[in-house]
């Protein structure tokens, strides 16, 4: 373990702002990249379900 305390870890020897900014934005972007296709798939499934219902109502 490189750091002595948690506060030490957060401050990163005075470079905390930069390190956490870089890691923070990267995390956000990676999560967005992962969530977008998941949401897209859900939407596709939903659309299909709606279409099926419509087809059943008008035989």
């Amino acid at each position: 373990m490189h750091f002595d305390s948690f506060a030490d870890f957060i401050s990163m020897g005075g470079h905390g702002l930069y390190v956490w900014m870089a890691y923070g934005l990267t995390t956000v972007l990676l999560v967005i990249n992962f969530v977008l296709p998941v949401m897209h798939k859900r939407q596709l499934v939903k659309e299909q379900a709606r279409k099926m219902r419509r087809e059943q109502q008008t035989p």
Partner: protein
Amino acid sequence: MMFETFRTWFHRMGSPKWFYDITGRWIPWFGGIAALCLLVGTVWGLFFAPQDYQQGNSFRIIYIHVPAAILAQSIFFTMAIAGGIGLIWKMKVADMVAKSCAPIGATMTFIALFTGAVWGKPTWGAWWVWDARLTSMLILLFLYFGVIALQSAFDSKQSAARASAILSLVGVVNIPIIKYSVEWWNTLHQPATFTLTEKPAMPMEMWMPLLVMVIGFYCFFATVLMMRTRNEILEREKRTQWVQGLLSSQ
């Protein structure tokens, strides 16, 4: 024999249904390895790796900057190769893979740019420095935007795929030329400033987490690429029976 096996595999790969099924089995693996590597690499890089004697703790940004920069370039190559396969063998799945590459690649390029800029502030004292790597990343981002813009400018999906395949092939030919000319230009204008990541020798404790992160980023890319391509398949093949059956069963 090898060739025959490869050919059957290649032909199967061209079938959207087969691709959909096989990647469905692969995604949990790639996703799992990605999550594991990214977690281990981040914890290792942030907590345990020693700090750089010159740059201190801001050096820890390397564990995302370098993997993102590597991915930014590899994804462009992947996109061009997939586009080329789609162009030559008229393989629809390859077109969809190429299309799915572009947004992920642009994200990686942006991450490399952003982390480079943030890293530059404590290192050079400025948010933006016309450093060779950052400048070529910026141009690469423009190339990605070009491909995405061209992709969305066409009404027909087929023309969009082919046109952007040509553009990404032209881009791939140009990337090394751009890279070397930017490096040359950089040495001309700012002699002897030290670059962010070119260390004479990185000790093992610094190097290992980087390797883990690179693997993690590659697996993350593979996972998202497969997810996006699968969605693309569902959308384009939605009139086929297997897709309708598959979607309504969920």
